[in-house]
């Protein structure tokens, strides 16, 4: 049995590469969200403003565009979220059990999740075939374009889950705390920027 030699740099390169892909895709998701806002807002405007004038403009495409953008955003966004282990799970058992057992279970859970993401790709490919002859009702976009999101998302989830496990091992961190909660951190950063409450108010109360 010969062990395949992975030079550490190739692992690190993979993780870095994924992070670059994720940064790009996060921007794509952000833009998609902006487009969703824009098209739904146009729909609202059309309903309120145009319906009160003699112009009868109907914009049925706004709903369709935004719904399909949302489907793509969900699969890409979930794929990105896998890199930080942000898909919510119940960590209670794993963190309560003795460390070696907890760690083993956590690896098992990554393996199961990874397996599911592979399954998602396979099912996604079947789903592509289903949409082959269909087009969307308003814009007549081939449904394949929309159904593709599941396959792409699945691939991204597999790769990012691998990247998370590898990066955690590389940094020699406990696998059980691989997840990063950056929603909380960003909320705290935002609030740290605002001035700490009421130091002045507290003092003025005392002097009154």
């Amino acid at each position, binding site marked *: 049995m010969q062990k395949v030699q992975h030079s550490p740099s190739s692992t690190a390169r993979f993780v870095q590469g994924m992070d670059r892909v994720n940064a790009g895709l*996060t*921007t794509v*998701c*952000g*833009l998609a*969200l*902006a487009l*969703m*806002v824009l098209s*739904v*807002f146009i*729909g*609202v405007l059309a*309903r309120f403003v145009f319906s009160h004038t003699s112009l009868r403009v109907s914009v049925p495409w706004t*709903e369709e565009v*935004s719904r399909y953008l*949302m*489907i793509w*955003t*969900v699969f*890409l*966004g*979930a794929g*990105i*979220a896998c890199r930080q282990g*942000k*898909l*919510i*799970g*119940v960590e*209670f058992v*794993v963190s309560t059990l003795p460390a070696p057992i907890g760690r083993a*279970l956590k690896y098992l*859970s990554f393996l*199961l*999740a990874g397996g599911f*993401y592979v*399954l998602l790709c396979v*099912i996604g490919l*079947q*789903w592509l075939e*289903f949409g082959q002859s269909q087009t969307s009702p308003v814009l007549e976009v081939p449904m394949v374009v*929309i*159904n593709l999101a*599941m396959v792409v998302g699945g691939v991204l989830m597999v790769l990012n889950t691998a990247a998370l496990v590898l990066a955690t091992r590389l940094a020699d961190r406990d696998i059980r705390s691989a997840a990063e909660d950056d*929603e*909380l951190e960003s*909320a705290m950063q*935002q*609030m*740290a920027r*605002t*001035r*700490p*409450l*009421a*130091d002045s*108010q*507290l003092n003025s109360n005392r002097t*009154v």
Partner: protein
Amino acid sequence: MTQILFAGFAVLLLLSVPIAVTLGLSSSIALYLAGKPLVLMAQSVYEALDSFGLMAIPFFVLAGTLMQSGGIAQRLVDLANALVGWIQGGLGACVVLTSMFFATMSGSSSATTAAIGSVLIPAMEKKGYPRPLAGAVAAASGELGVIIPPSIPMIIYALSANVSVADLFLAGVIPGVFIGISLIITVCVVARLKGFDAVSPMTLGQWLGGLLIAFKRASLAILMPVLILGGIYGGLFTATEASVIAVVYGLFIGIYVYKELHWRDLLPLLGRSAVTSSIILMIVGFAAIFAYILTVNQVPHMVGAFVTSISKNPIVFLFAVNVLLLLTGMFMETLAAIIILAPILAPAALQYGIDPVHFGTIMIVNLAIGMVTPPVGVNLFVVCQVAKLRLEQLIRPLLVFLCVLIIDVLIISYVPALSIWFR
């Protein structure tokens, strides 16, 4: 088929597999063993996500994030402090009140807890509150984030129980205010008994003057929920339309009025909101196939028949549901609990003559308490991180608030008029 589904679900959940994967994987196993095509999963995930109503979730997430960075939170804290800062226990009351204001812009309870807790827990400590008590106040009032509209769990309940999101939003207003007031009273009583955060004497004129200044500074922020809820109540727009108006409004005052938000911050903020929403919507999508398998196997029907065979009395039923939901909330993640339980319990409730909108409020309020109870309580985790506390330290000061919240949930359960006042 359902036994396999539930067994798979429980095992995977305990293994800390992400909820979305737990739902999807246990459903795939059940489908595979029943000889059904797995592509059914893709179909129902797509059907669930291909929804205009669901789009309110990313929009409200985005609106909440805009509000956090747009200088609005600070103004809300100042307004709440001007209103109740002079009472004994006023700062604790201010935490509750700020959470209530914040909840009118945010649909999530962990975001509310994080935002309010990080500023006000240190302030409370300075005024003599023991830190664990300060944390308990922030955690307990954070649950208002999902009770006072907009609320992400409410959108999900509405879609899975087939009721109007707008109705559910309106139904949350009075219970939210009611819970808020009960928490304010509790904080003030605790402060008086323990003797900290003393009264600061103030003339009526001073109070009004301070209030007026704070109100003027915060008026544009306060106007938004009025606009949105008013529009929904008046039937002017749907919840999704309201959510997009909230985004545009938040953007406008953040950039042009308060000038604390810049165009260059926008793209990272959008990306972050998109990813956060994807995490939520992923659960929604895969819960759809889970719920589909339950429905095909007539589980809701069987549960309904079983429950009605035990008691025909709606009071007993509601009590049993409260206990079930409180226990579920202690261990389960809220959104998944709603998607699995709403299609099962709402039809049963209807047989007892309980309005599905009222039942939705009961469910949300119960599960919201679950966010403040160990062992699995989002708000507690957030507070522990923000205030550098251990979970055990929070439990004792939390008990009194939990008792109040449980009394609140019972009152909300047995007085439907609080929820369906607008009918």
